[in-house]
């Protein structure tokens, strides 16, 4: 296929000399070489290394020594990790449901190309352009009891009498973090859903309406089923993203109060850089990696 240029340009197909064929192959390799180097050195090699590290006692400084399978057997004894697994699953479930609902609502509101809709789409997406660390610091200030505007607003509206402990109790810390995540990602997910909504042919809607279907029936019988692949993609992205949550908790709650908002990735980070146990962190990484790849494969099969 790729030889058509040389063939049609210069000589009859069958008389193309082998040297040209080879040079075409070599050229192809040369163009792809930078990709191959990056993928090989910075992706394949660390993937192999993480497995090797997980089989060794690997201190931050000093010599590594083989100790398999100790890093793996110790995982079950790590109470912080076990708690983190449950916390992360709970966070993932709540976030995915709320985020999907908000994103779907937004997408339905802005799906028609009417005047001014472009402005609203931009407004909803704009927080998505802000980095997660910056967004976390923004909320950190906004919800602060002395400095932030939210407490005075709620009080002047008579909704509360005193400042709320936004990140002071485990439940409020979770609630505040999820609010932050929805603010940051709703527009992003709305964009995903919009691509799906726009792929539904208008004729289908017209046919349904001429058959006398009302709005709700159109939504449940046509929009939702036809949106299924897009919804599936959004669910997969949301579940995977939430299971890997780190920035929001590190920046915003710092795992607190009382280690109640420590996510799985946060445990990996602490194991490596606070307890200087890179081997243990690698074992946790491998477990998380295998679980996520398995889950992704499963979700793709079930949802598509």
């Amino acid at each position, binding site marked *: 296929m790729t030889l058509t240029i040389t063939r049609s340009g210069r000589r009859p197909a069958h008389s193309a000399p082998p040297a040209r064929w080879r040079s075409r192959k070599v050229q192809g390799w040369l163009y*792809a070489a930078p*990709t191959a180097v990056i993928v090989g050195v910075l992706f394949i090699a660390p*993937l192999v*290394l993480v497995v090797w590290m997980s089989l060794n006692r690997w201190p931050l400084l000093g010599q590594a020594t083989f100790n398999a399978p100790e890093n793996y057997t110790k995982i079950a004894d790590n109470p912080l990790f076990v708690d983190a697994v449950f916390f992360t699953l709970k966070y993932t479930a709540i976030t995915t449901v709320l985020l999907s609902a908000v994103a779907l609502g937004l997408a339905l509101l802005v799906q028609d190309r009417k005047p001014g809709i472009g402005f*609203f789409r931009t407004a909803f997406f704009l927080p998505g352009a802000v980095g997660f660390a910056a967004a976390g610091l923004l909320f950190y200030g906004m919800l602060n009891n002395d400095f932030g505007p939210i407490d005075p607003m709620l009080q002047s509206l008579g909704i509360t009498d005193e400042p709320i402990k936004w990140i002071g109790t485990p439940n409020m810390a979770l609630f505040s973090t999820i609010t932050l995540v929805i603010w940051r990602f709703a527009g992003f997910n709305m964009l995903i859903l919009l691509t799906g909504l726009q792929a539904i042919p208008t004729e289908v809607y017209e046919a349904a309406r001429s058959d006398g279907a009302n709005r709700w029936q159109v939504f449940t019988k046509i929009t939702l089923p036809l949106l299924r692949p897009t919804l599936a993609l959004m669910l997969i992205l949301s579940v995977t993203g939430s299971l890997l949550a780190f920035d929001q908790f590190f920046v915003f709650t710092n795992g607190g109060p009382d280690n109640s908002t420590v996510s799985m*990735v946060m445990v990996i980070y602490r194991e490596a850089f606070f307890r200087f146990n890179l081997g243990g962190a690698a074992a946790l990484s491998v477990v998380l*990696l295998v679980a996520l790849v398995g889950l992704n494969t499963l979700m793709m099969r079930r949802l598509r």
Partner: protein
Amino acid sequence: MSRYLTLSALAVLFLFPLVWSGYASLEEPSNYLEMAQFGEGLGTYSTNSVLVSVMTVAGTLVVSALGGYGFARFDFPGKNLLFLATLAILMVPYATILIPLYVLLGYIGLQNSLVGLSLVFVMFQLPFALFMMRNAFEALPRELEEAALVDGCGTFRAFTRILLHAVRPALITVGLFAFLASWNDFFAPLILLNDGASFTLPVAVVSMTQQTFGAIDYGMLQAGVMVMAFPCLILFIVLQRHYVRGFMSGALRG
């Protein structure tokens, strides 16, 4: 009409935090001056962030344009395997290979280095970028390149003189995604940089909140937020057409 009322109320909710942060940072303009003197200085951190983003964008564009052209127009042994390996980066969770990357960069002398960090960002951008660029080159009519080759150009001259101009929209999309990702990322620089003088903005400003023993200066903090957010907001508003196009082509990454 009621739809516009709902939309407006929601837009206020979504825009309020950004407006508030801008207002809080400007309430005392000295916030920016204090921020500028914090730690190694805002100048150092911003320079680091700019360097990393420029290197990431340039690296991603060069690698993915060359690779995309190679994948779209040439056949070579191992082609499919390499393409699959690149796409597999999407399947492997980012966070799980940062610790071996930290060790690996140590082996090749790039630990605590902005170049090393940029290379890691290029790798994470590569599946999306290569996919975009390959499709862009495949969409070009072959006659475009044929004409140049008949005129006696080598493929590389045809590539740099003609084809690269023709795929400019895809280059802008790839560049925009690479910029937003590298400028905003927190986790990779947190792990891969360990010396305050090499911190990028997100790591530097977050470490400010976690190092202060006394009261945090929240106004100054919002100045930091604005310095980080402003370039992204402007770039997104100017180039949003390209962002949405990247989305539509089915390649998504958060």
